C-alpha cells in the first residue's frame, strides 16, 4: 500500500508537469531554438570548412547543450514558487525526493530528450560521421540527465532570487565541466575509430552519482529557499 502511494505521487506529479509543459510550450521550445541557433552560429563564425567543423563539432554541440540546459532549468521550480504550489509540496508529508525526481524527469523529458531528437540534424549541420552521431546520441542520453540534476540543484538554490537565471548559470556551469570533458572525448574518440567504453562508463558513473546525491541537495535547498514569501 505504501509503495503504491509512493508511486502514485511520482506519477501524479510527472503527469501534472507534462500537462503543464504541453499547455505552456514556450518554456521548453525557446531553449531548444536557442540550442539550434547557437550551433548554427559556429559555421558562420569559423567558416564552412568541413574538416574543421567535424573537429569542433562535439565541443560546439555540447557547449550549446550546456547553455540551453541552463536556460531551461531556471523555470523548473520558479513557476511553482511564484504561485505557491511549491509551498504545498514542501508541507506535504509525502516523500520530497519522489516529488523532486518526478519534476526533474518531467523537465528532462521536455528539455533534454528533444536535444537527442535534434541530434541527427545537428550531426548533418556539423558534418559528423554516422559513428560520430551514434556516439553523440549516447553521450546526450547519459549526459543531459546529469545536466538536469545539477541544474535542478542550482534552480532550487536561486528560486527566490528575482532574475536568478544568470546566477544559476554561474553556480552550475563549473560543476558541469566533467560532463563536458567526458562527453566530448567520447565523440572525438569515436570519430577516430577508437573504443569508447571507458569514457562512456565514466559518464555512466557520473550519472549514477548525481541520481543518488542530487535529490538530497535539491530537497535541502528547497527547504531553505522555497519557503521565502
Amino acid at each position: 500500500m505504501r509503495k503504491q502511494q509512493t508511486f502514485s505521487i511520482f506519477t501524479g506529479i510527472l503527469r501534472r508537469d507534462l500537462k503543464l509543459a504541453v499547455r505552456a510550450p514556450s518554456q521548453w521550445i525557446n531553449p531548444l531554438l536557442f540550442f539550434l541557433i547557437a550551433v548554427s552560429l559556429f559555421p558562420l563564425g569559423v567558416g564552412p570548412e568541413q574538416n574543421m567543423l567535424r573537429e569542433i563539432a562535439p565541443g560546439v554541440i555540447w557547449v550549446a547543450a550546456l547553455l540551453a540546459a541552463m536556460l531551461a532549468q531556471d523555470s523548473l521550480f520558479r513557476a511553482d514558487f511564484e504561485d505557491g504550489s511549491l509551498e504545498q509540496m514542501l508541507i506535504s508529508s509525502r516523500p520530497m525526493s519522489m516529488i523532486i525526481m518526478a519534476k526533474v524527469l518531467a523537465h528532462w523529458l521536455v528539455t533534454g530528450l528533444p536535444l537527442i531528437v535534434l541530434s541527427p540534424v545537428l550531426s548533418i549541420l556539423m558534418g559528423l560521421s554516422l559513428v560520430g552521431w551514434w556516439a553523440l546520441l549516447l553521450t546526450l542520453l547519459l549526459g543531459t540527465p546529469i545536466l538536469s540534476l545539477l541544474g535542478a540543484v542550482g534552480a532550487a538554490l536561486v528560486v527566490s532570487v528575482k532574475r536568478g537565471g544568470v546566477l544559476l548559470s554561474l553556480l552550475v556551469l563549473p560543476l558541469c565541466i566533467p560532463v563536458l570533458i567526458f562527453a566530448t572525448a567520447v565523440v572525438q574518440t569515436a570519430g577516430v575509430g577508437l573504443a569508447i567504453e571507458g569514457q562512456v562508463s565514466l559518464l555512466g558513473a557520473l550519472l549514477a552519482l548525481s541520481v543518488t546525491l542530487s535529490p538530497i541537495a535539491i530537497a535541502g535547498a528547497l527547504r531553505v529557499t522555497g519557503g521565502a514569501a
Partner: protein
Amino acid sequence: MSFELKSGELLQIDGANGSGKTTLLRTVCGLVPADEGNVYWCNRPIQQNRQGYFSQLAFVGHKHGIKDELTAAENLEIDQILAANPSSVSVREALGRLGIGECRHQLCRELSAGQRQRVALARLLVSIAHFWVLDEPLTALDQEAQRTVCDLVGQHIAAGGMVLLTSHQKLDWSGQAHRIIKLGNA
C-alpha cells in the same frame, strides 16, 4: 509571543498590515525558520516530526498554490495526491460545496479572484487534516461564500479540528468558541 492550540479550538490572528501575521503563519507551517523559539506539535519540535506534523496540516496561504494552466478539478487532484490522508469527499463534491462546481473544467486562469480562492479552499475538504492554517481566507469572497467558509470552519472545529487563521473582520463562527490575538506593530 507564545500560544497553544488544542483540538476543537479556533485562533484568529488580527493586526495591522506589516505586523507579521503572514510570517507567523508561515513559521507555524515550518516554511520559514523562527528567528527565536520553536513550533511544537504534540510536544515535539516540528523539524523533528515533519512527517507526523505535515500529515495533519492543511494550508491555504497568501499565494494560493493553484496552477493557472490546470483546471479547477485538476488542481484539486494534485492536492489529493499531496495529502497524506485523502478524504472520502470527491473533487466534484468539494468544489460543489464551495459553490464552484459548474466551473470545475475551466482553466484557473479564466476564473475570477474569488473563484480561485474557493478552489484553494476546497483543498481543505479533499484531505483529512486535523489542523487548518488559513491566511486571510475571506478577502476576495462575496457575502455568500464568506458564509460558506465560516460554516466549514465552524463544522471543522465542532468535529474536534484545529484552525489558525488571520482576518481583519469580526466573524461569526457558527457559534463556536474562538480566541483572537491582536499583533501590534513591532
